[in-house]
C-alpha cells in the first residue's frame, strides 16, 4: 500500500484517482505511526510552502526512517520543494534536506527566448505563477523518467522552484532553469503534476509505483 500523506494542502482527489487508474492501492494515514506499514510514500502538495509545517517532527522522523529502510518516496510540487532544504516562500520553515539547495521564487520578466525568436510577439513577460504545459529536458537516465523523452510536456502550476543539482533527472526552463524531476536512490520528486499530465504523467507514476 502507498501512503498518501495529507497535510491539509489542497485536495488529494486527483492523485488518488491517478493511482487508482494505474492499479496502485493507496490510503491516507491519519497519524505518523501508520506510516510503518507503507510500501511507498507520496508527499503531494499544492499551495504554500508554509503548509508543510503540518508535517511535524513526528512525521519527519517517520518519513526519514522509512526512507532509510529503503521505502520509495515521491514528492509532488510543494512535496518536491519540501525535500530540499527550504524555500524563500516560507523562510522559517525547514525542508527535509534530502536534496541540497533552497527553492526560490520565479520572477516575472521579459521572455528573452520568445522575443528573440519573434514568436508570439505579444508575450513579452513571463507570468507568475508558471501555469500550463511546459517541456522537459531529460538530462540523465533515471528510474522515474524511464521512457520519457526530452520535449515531452507536463503540467505545472507553481511560483517557486528548486535549483538544478546533481540529482536532477529532468530540467524545465521558465525564465530560469529549475529541477522538474529529481532522483536519488529511492527518493524521487517532481515539480509538475503527473496526475494532471495525461499519458506522460501516468507513465511517470507507473515507473515510480513499479518500484514500490
Amino acid at each position, binding site marked *: 500500500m502507498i501512503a498518501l500523506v495529507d497535510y491539509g494542502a489542497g*485536495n488529494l482527489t486527483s492523485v488518488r484517482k491517478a493511482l487508482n487508474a494505474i492499479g496502485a492501492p493507496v490510503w491516507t494515514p491519519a497519524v505518523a505511526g501508520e506510516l510503518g506499514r507503507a510500501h511507498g510514500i507520496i508527499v503531494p502538495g*499544492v499551495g504554500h510552502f508554509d503548509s508543510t509545517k503540518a508535517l511535524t517532527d513526528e512525521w519527519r522522523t517517520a518519513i526519514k526512517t522509512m526512507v532509510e529502510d529503503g521505502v520509495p518516496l515521491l514528492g509532488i510540487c510543494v512535496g518536491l520543494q519540501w525535500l530540499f532544504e527550504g524555500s524563500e516562500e516560507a523562510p522559517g520553515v525547514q525542508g527535509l534536506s534530502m536534496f541540497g539547495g533552497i527553492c526560490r521564487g520565479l520572477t516575472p520578466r521579459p521572455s528573452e527566448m520568445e522575443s528573440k525568436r519573434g514568436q508570439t510577439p*505579444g*508575450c513579452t513577460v513571463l*507570468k507568475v505563477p508558471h501555469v500550463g504545459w511546459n517541456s522537459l529536458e531529460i538530462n540523465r537516465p533515471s528510474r522515474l523518467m524511464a521512457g520519457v523523452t526530452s520535449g515531452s510536456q507536463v*503540467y505545472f502550476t507553481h511560483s517557486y522552484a528548486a535549483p538544478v543539482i546533481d540529482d536532477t533527472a529532468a530540467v524545465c526552463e521558465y525564465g530560469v532553469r529549475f529541477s522538474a524531476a529529481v532522483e536519488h536512490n529511492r527518493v524521487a520528486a517532481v515539480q509538475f503534476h503527473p496526475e494532471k499530465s495525461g499519458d506522460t504523467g501516468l507513465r511517470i507514476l507507473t515507473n515510480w509505483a513499479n518500484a514500490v
Partner: protein
Amino acid sequence: MLSKRIIACLDVRDGKVVKGVNFEGLRDAGDPAALARRYNVEGIDEVVILDVTATIESRQARAHTIAAVAAEIFLPLTVGGGIRTEADAAAAIDAGADKVSLNTAALSDPDLITTLAKRYGSQAVIVAIDAKRQDDRFAVFARSGQSGTTRDAVEWAREATERGAGEILLTSIDRDGTKGGFDCEMTAAVSDAVNIPVIASGGAGTFEHFADVFASGHADAALAASIFHFNEHSVSELKRFLQARGVPVRM
C-alpha cells in the same frame, strides 16, 4: 517553452452537453464524459465544465457529471456555473475538479476569492469575467451577461488578482457565439494588466482566430466550445496549424 493552452468548454445542463453541438457521428451524444474522452485523445490541454443550470437541485447531478468526466481524463479540470459559496466550491473539488471558476459570486462577494485561495491555493481559483464594450471601456456583466455592474474588466481583473485569483477567464459578450473571432484588444488590455494567466473566450470560429488571440490578444490560453464539436480531429488540426504558425503548443 510554456505552451499556449487550448481548453474545451462543456456547457452542461442537467448532466447533458448543450449549446451549439453537432453530435452527428457521436454515439454517446450529449454525454460529457464521452466528449471529454474524445478531446483527451485529440490532445486537448484542459477541460472546463460550465453548468448552465446549476440550481440547488442540480448540485448532486453536477457532482455526478464532474466525477464522470474526472474519471476519463488526467488533465486539469475546471468547474464553473453556480459556484456561489465555499460549500459549492468544496463540493466541486471533492467531486474531482482541480479548479473552480467564480463569476457572479466573485462580484457580489469578492472575499470568496480570498477564502478559496487560502483553502485550496490560488491555482485552484479562476475568476471568470464576462465583459462587453461600452463607450471606451470594457463593462463587466453578472448573471450570464444579464445584469450590468459598475466594474471595468481591466480593473476587476487587477483586483481579482490581488485578492488571490490564479487565472482570469475573460469572455467577450459581444463576440460570444458569433464565430467572428476573439476580442483581441480587450484580451490584451486585461492580459497586460495582470501577472496571472488570462484565458480568452468568446468568438472562436476559425483556426486563424486562435493564432490572433495568442499574438495580438496576448492570451495565455484560449477556450472554445462549439468549434471543437464539428470535426473529429479539430483539436489536433488546430494544434498543427498553430505550431506551423510558430505558436508553442503541446503536441
